[in-house]
């Protein structure tokens, strides 16, 4: 271990060999006694429960969303994420202020927050509620921040369970609590969601299989030191861990606070300027999201929105037209279009039926090539210069729909076609965007940290059993995502793969 730590030793905070070239905690006099006491298990009973957090308002876009935090650390966490505009936070008093991510200094949302000191609260613990804008983006970002500050995501019904266990609810409500607990396992997802979830869990399973590989090797090296087996070198370990880490990172990136917020089928809407792309988007969204004007090129940036069409979650990207332009700002928009084009699972190409196909249309058609696509021949109300059969000749694999978005025609048909494509498995969500909810994101983030720790330990050439702890934890965390936690499979794999024994 390269030891640059000596200077810091006296002032260090983090403990032990985890530290390495970071910091090392100096053992305090009481630690040993505490250790001995714990070893002898004269443990105390006043154990603290975790602080939990969750989005308390119903899913979907409401005007206001609430994030609830319950537990000893609720106030601490609020202080970490919330900057009140004036005054101090007082129990039972609403304060107005901002949620700021202290790691980046970025403002996330303006909110109202209230702190309710236990035991006079729903769970009898300290409770904090943050009221923010109702968009799921805002809620998700704030929740993610709260979780990163030390809260754990609440299980279904956990607030109510705590309220009950802490004597807040009367006995007659016990059944209701049980119903809440059970709701999770009894819930059935619809087919479309299942399909998408399936791809996600496949990915998690793949990473877990990699983790099992590492764990099996660690286990066999630790538990069978005498056997004639390949040694787990630090170099090999480093390589495997690095690989797993980058896979988790890739997944996490999809859940990042950027554009791609919620999961779904990635659909790009393309077309030359002013053929009705934004109108299409608005028609699907049911409200005016992108600015619609008659001036070509108004939609300069790509816009993403998540909607549900026939129960299928869809991430819509409205792109600027793909045409050569001198305008620098628009150029950026066009580059982005090409990019999102390449990332999408399905392309909706909007063309003007009332005009002949132009160079730009052909340019787009060239881009579409063999990709899954739907062609919307819009502006049927204005004329029919370009026909379905014409399109089918050029793009034989595309579904063609005649529409007049101004008159609201063609939208239902579009929904039917998308549904058909998904259910028939003709379009599948690519494996580039997968992380669908905060719980998954949270678990993945923790797993990512574990891999980081494991890699640090590996770089410092620390004993294998310490590295094993982090790898194992990561394996468990990822298991929680897909509801698999059994660890006996490691031992099974050890005997499956290695010839061991006297």
């Amino acid at each position, binding site marked *: 271990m390269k030891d640059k730590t*000596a200077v810091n030793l006296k002032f260090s905070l983090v403990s032990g060999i985890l530290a390495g070239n970071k910091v090392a905690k*100096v053992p305090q006099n009481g630690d040993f006694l505490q250790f001995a006491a714990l070893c002898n298990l004269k443990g105390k009973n006043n154990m603290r429960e975790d602080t939990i957090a969750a989005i308390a308002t119903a899913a979907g876009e409401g005007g206001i969303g609430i994030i609830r935090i319950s537990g000893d650390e609720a106030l601490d966490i609020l202080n970490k994420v919330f900057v009140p505009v004036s005054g101090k936070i007082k129990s039972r008093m609403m304060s107005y202020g901002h949620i700021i991510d202290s790691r980046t200094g970025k403002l996330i949302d303006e909110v109202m927050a209230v702190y309710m000191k236990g035991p006079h609260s729903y769970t009898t613990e300290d409770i904090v509620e943050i009221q923010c804008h109702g968009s799921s983006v805002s809620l998700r970002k704030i929740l993610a921040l709260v979780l990163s500050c030390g809260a754990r995501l609440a299980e279904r019904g956990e607030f109510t369970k705590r309220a009950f266990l802490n004597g807040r609810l009367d006995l007659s409500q016990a059944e209701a609590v*049980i119903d809440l607990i059970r709701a999770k396992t009894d819930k059935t997802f619809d087919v479309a969601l299942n399909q998408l979830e399936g791809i996600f869990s496949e990915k998690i399973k793949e990473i877990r299989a990699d983790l099992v590989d590492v764990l099996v090797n660690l286990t066999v090296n630790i538990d069978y030191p005498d056997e004639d087996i390949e040694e787990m070198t630090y170099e090999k370990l480093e390589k495997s861990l690095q690989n797993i880490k980058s896979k988790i990172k890739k997944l996490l990136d999809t859940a990042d606070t950027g554009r791609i917020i919620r999961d779904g089928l990635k659909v790009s809407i393309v077309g030359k300027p002013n053929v009705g792309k934004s109108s299409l988007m608005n028609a699907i969204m049911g409200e005016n999201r992108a600015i619609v004007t008659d001036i070509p090129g108004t939609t300069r940036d790509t816009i993403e929105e998540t909607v549900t069409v026939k129960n299928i979650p869809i991430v819509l990207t409205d792109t600027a037209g793909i045409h050569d332009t001198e305008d620098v700002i628009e150029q950026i928009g066009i580059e982005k279009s090409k990019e999102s084009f390449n990332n999408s699972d399905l392309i909706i190409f909007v063309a003007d039926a009332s005009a002949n196909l132009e160079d730009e249309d052909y340019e787009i058609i060239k881009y579409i090539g063999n990709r899954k696509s739907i062609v919307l021949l819009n502006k049927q109300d204005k004329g029919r210069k370009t026909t379905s059969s014409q399109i089918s000749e050029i793009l034989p694999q595309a579904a063609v729909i005649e529409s007049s978005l101004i008159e609201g025609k063609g939208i239902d048909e579009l929904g039917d076609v998308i549904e058909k494509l998904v259910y028939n498995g003709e379009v599948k969500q690519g494996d580039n965007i997968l992380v669908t909810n905060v719980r998954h994101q949270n678990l993945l983030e923790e797993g990512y940290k574990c891999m980081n720790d494991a890699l640090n330990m590996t770089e410092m050439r620390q004993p294998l059993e310490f590295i094993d702890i982090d790898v194992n934890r990561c394996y468990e965390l990822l298991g929680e995502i897909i509801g698999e936690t059994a660890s006996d499979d490691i031992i099974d794999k050890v005997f499956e793969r290695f010839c061991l*024994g006297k």
Partner: protein
Amino acid sequence: MGEYDCIVVGAGHAGCEAALACARMGKKTLMFSMNLEAIAMMPCNPSIGGTGKGHLVREIDALGGEMGINIDKTFLQSKMLNTAKGPAVHSLRAQADKNRYHIEMKKTIEKTPNLDMKQGEVTDIVVEEGKVTGVITKTHTWYKAKAVILATGTFLAGKIFIGSSVFESGPNGLAPSNELAQNLKKHGMKLRRFKTGTPARCLGSSLDYSKMIEQKGDEKTVPFSFMNDEVGDNKVSCWLTYTNEETHKVIRANFHRSALFGGQIEGIGPRYCPSIEDKVNRFADKERHQLFVEPEGLDTDEMYIQGMSSSLPEDVQLAFYKTIPGLENLRIVRPAYAIEYDCINPQDLKLNLENRHIENLFCAGQFNGSSGYEEAAAQGLMAGINAVLKISGKKSLVLGRNEAYIGVLIDDLVTKGTNEPYRIMTSRAEYRLVLRQDNADLRLTDKGYAVGLASEERYKRYLKKKENVEKEFARLQEKSFAPAEVKEFLEAHGTTPVQSRVSMAELLKRPQISYADLAEIDDDSRPELSYHEVTQLEVQIKYEGYIQKQLAQIERFKRLEDKRLSQDIDYSLIEGLRIEAAQKLNQLKPESLGQASRISGVSPADINVLLVYLEKKRRGKQ
């Protein structure tokens, strides 16, 4: 023909620990053995300890058991395994002088007050109103007892397989115990078949050691028992050699003659202890398999061929052994064999190792579906302790998964059950960093003392060690040096200099510096510490951070462990539990929510339902 507090059936590693524990805790005890020459017999490998197993031996010792002391008296070669890895998985293993191991254990049993031993075959247990009250022997003699401990090993309905030959037998040519198996079934006990095997023994004089690689013990040997500071030098070497394609050819050509593949064996064998034909079959692309040649004792020329157990016919055995470098002129004196025996499903036991259906009947060792001398001894010890506590009307001693490998072993067996002879592994423990072999006494000796098993002398040693370590711990933190004072010292040990004052504890945190090294800069206040004390200090200081992390995990783990579940809950009446969970819970009657959560088929949601149920019940009482 006699009235005892405790009767132990079997005198193997489980039986001996059980009997000694009962007698030492002041109960009038009788131990039966089919043959007194079989007391503490080692019918398989001539060694004690190893990964996980070494931890068990230290824990048995810390509680006041005999295995550690006995192997320290009789070891031939000692080796600390895994020293290239961290302290949590350092594991001691010693080659044993089998005969002396048996003799020393027998002597100890002979001179232990309250303890009788008897050669005889127990053929039945007496059960009255759901309670065991005694045993009956082959000679139709009836012995009364308040508690009975079954530790029948591989004797129960034992059957040996060598090629096409199958015959009823206990281990090592001893008689099997058939009647007892039949009668246990009559008492409603469900028995099943497990299998294990052992390699051939040969004469050392027929081997050519120049073709093998010598395996020496450690230069500095280390005792198993916390009662010993020194154990003396190694007396022998072991030898390493390998099979080759020729060996595998012979084996493959004779697959059809193996009892294993012939389908005669119904019992399930352990995966970690496969026979050589199994290895060759399952790992066909492996070019060679290693084997160790290990002495069986100082008074014999017999050698054990570790890694080569088999149920092939004798002529095939000789043929394949002879293909191995160094074994060309091998003379086999005992052929390899596979043995099948009756055992129970350990899920029929409570965590104190008492049978769920027959009160005061305790079970231990291979009879419970485990494998290995150390696993057996650990259960024997706990069965003995708990039998005494039970008949004395005291609370059971159940060690948690966070407290001991013994706890992991028993909880695994009882809660999860096992489909093969169960072997401990360090990876079975969740809190490996805390469950080290070096701190077994700190974890367990006061428990052993509290139940009246660990001796006064052991307890005093433990207290002294604890005090010495704590004192020295404090001193190491207090005593500090200016950078200039330790510059040379640090350079000499290949580690970077410091810029500000540094304590000895901080220096010891560095991987390059050991406690012994510190003597170079230390002063007169440095105490004289024992091996066990030094190890303790080093490990605790060097790995403090990770240990703290794990202790925090244990705190969390204990939340569910501490929530007790009554034995008379009818889970089928609890609303909200899934049917599968309710059935499992009714079958296994877990003693805590923690145990319930480890039962397969019980989900986290079920545990939450139980939490609500417990709260409801608590309020109902108020």
